[in-house]
């Protein structure tokens, strides 16, 4: 990744124009489905169309909720739930595998009105980690629960549980086997209760792309509702072949997710360790709050400034309570889109789209 960064930075800078409206919309929603080395020609037209349709469907789902008066928090949750169920994205079903052949999922959500927040890390049996994160926020005195303790809480709080095989997809499994072979690590047993390998074929080109695009695949949503409240949420399966219970930025309030009505709502995707070391999400909000910058300037300062200087890759989607949206990323592409009241949905993948 690193070798590409310097060449990409300049073009990415050019392509990160703000999508701010003239008048404040009644509501707005924006999302990302992960950033990475996603370039024209990598995907078949059919595959690209599938991604664009999935992003648009997710936007319309959240927008429909906002239109009928749902809170930003509800819109964020429902939109991420549908992306968690979509095997194209690295969250929920279709999440990447750990080196031990498990799906360990992380998510967080934050309410910009109250600064309440919830997060879960390393859950393996919860269909919708974003909903469990919201339950941690609403039904526990805590902000973050990890591992088996989080799953015990999931049982008590009534979150939908599934068998771990629910999250299995053949292409993620093949991707894990390739990653482990490259690292010289042993391959785990194929998980129980999943289809036999020959029932689904995966071509190498698709795997190549997936490894590049999903090196830091994540989904994230930000929204502002009719009351002017904002919220942000992020959900991920982490990184392929991750070891030792590694937790990235997605479940860390301040790193992968942040929301405050005083500043902005942010969801990040990228090399999580760098996002933690820079508290990327809250740093974007700090630029808005303390420096009075517009959201695009703030997002670019953190992504093209601090993150790029430290050697990290990825991007953010950010929104202010007036409905201004910014995407900023230093990778060639990021699955992303926005939809504001009275407008058509806008879906983008490559860096040269805006």
């Amino acid at each position, binding site marked *: 990744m690193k070798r590409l960064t310097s060449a990409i930075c300049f073009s990415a800078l050019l392509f990160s124009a703000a999508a701010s409206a003239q008048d404040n919309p009644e509501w707005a929603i924006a999302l990302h489905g992960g950033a990475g080395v996603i370039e024209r020609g990598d995907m078949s037209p059919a595959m690209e169309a599938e991604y664009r349709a999935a992003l648009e469907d997710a936007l319309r789902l959240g927008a429909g909720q906002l239109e009928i008066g749902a809170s930003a928090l509800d819109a964020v949750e429902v939109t991420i739930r549908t992306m968690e169920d979509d095997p194209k994205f690295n969250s929920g079903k279709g999440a990447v595998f750990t080196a031990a052949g498990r799906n360990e999922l992380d998510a967080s959500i934050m309410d910009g009105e109250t600064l309440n927040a919830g997060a879960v890390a390393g859950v393996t049996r919860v269909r919708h980690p974003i909903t469990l994160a919201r339950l941690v926020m609403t039904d*526990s005195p805590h*902000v973050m629960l990890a*591992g088996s303790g989080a799953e015990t809480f999931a049982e008590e709080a009534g979150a939908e549980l599934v068998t771990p095989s629910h999250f299995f997809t053949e292409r993620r499994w093949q991707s894990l086997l390739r990653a482990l072979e490259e690292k010289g690590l042993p391959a785990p047993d194929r998980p129980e209760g999943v289809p036999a390998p020959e029932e689904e074929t995966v071509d190498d080109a698709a795997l190549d792309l997936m490894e590049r695009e999903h090196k830091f695949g994540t989904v994230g949503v930000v929204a502002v509702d009719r009351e002017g409240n904002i919220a942000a949420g992020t959900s991920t399966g982490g990184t392929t072949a991750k070891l030792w*219970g590694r937790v990235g930025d997605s479940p860390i*309030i301040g790193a992968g997710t942040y929301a405050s009505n005083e500043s902005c709502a942010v969801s990040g995707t990228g090399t999580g360790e760098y996002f*933690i*070391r820079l508290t990327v999400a809250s740093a974007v909000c700090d630029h808005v709050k*303390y420096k009075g910058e517009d959201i695009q300037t703030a997002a670019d300062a953190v992504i093209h400034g601090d993150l790029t200087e430290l050697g990290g890759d990825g991007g953010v989607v950010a929104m202010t309570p007036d409905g201004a949206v910014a995407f900023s990323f230093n990778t060639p592409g990021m699955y992303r889109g926005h939809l504001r009241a009275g407008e058509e949905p806008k879906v983008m993948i490559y860096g040269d789209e805006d």
Partner: protein
Amino acid sequence: MAQSVASIALHGGAGPDPSKNYDKHEAHLRELARDAHKRLLDGESAMDAIVWAVKQLEDSGLYIAGRGSSPNANGEYELDASLMDGFTRRAGAVAAMRGFRSPVEAARAVMRETPHVMLVGAGAEEFARAQGLERVDDPADYYKPASDKKLATGELGHGTVGAVAMDAEGHLAAATSTGGVINKMPGRVGDSPVIGAGTWADKRVAVSCTGQGEFFMRAAAAADVSARIRYGGQDVEEATLGALQDMKRQGGDGGMIAIDGRGRVVMPFSSSGLKRACVHKDGRVESGVF
């Protein structure tokens, strides 16, 4: 030629019980701060000095960290720690880790030996084993809970230890370590192992927090102190007080120790007190509990 000044601050948790005497804790913190300061003047790095100091705090059994931790609702001892090097901005953290003597040492190993920042639960334990870190083989014998306080439902605990330092090179570092309080929910991760919430260090400031951790997480409190300095033009005193006041408005309290890039130490708190000690860069020792 390195400057021959350094400063260090330590804390042993916020929210002391006003009916109790903490002379022993204060004396211990003063002694440790002096020893750590001497190490800094002898040329030890801020990172090495804070890890050394936090290990002493963990091993003492006087505070709710390391040996003084209490079992959670499952009767298990789950510990958290994090640290950050202000010069390189590298960081390490472990959360909900059982069975190892020094969480802060495990956090440093995560920083040094992995590409990651944070490891949790069984995975963190597997890593610590592979690193050969010192184990706690008999928890019932080793742990001597420093607090007998049981949390009411929904109540948030306060116990933590932490250290911040500026070394003779002018580099900053921060570390925080915590055990648990009785009946803590298994898997609960507070602010202590979260970079930006309980711990932060960059070239401007090093911060270690203690208090009602959930409020520190929502505010990304430790990183907020740096943002106030960097973007808000505040000094370290205004920045830490401002961060604590914002959390007080949200209903949360606690304390912080912080050192800025010129070695200025502050130790403010919004709770009933903060067990604390520091050695200022002029060599003056300061300590207190309430």
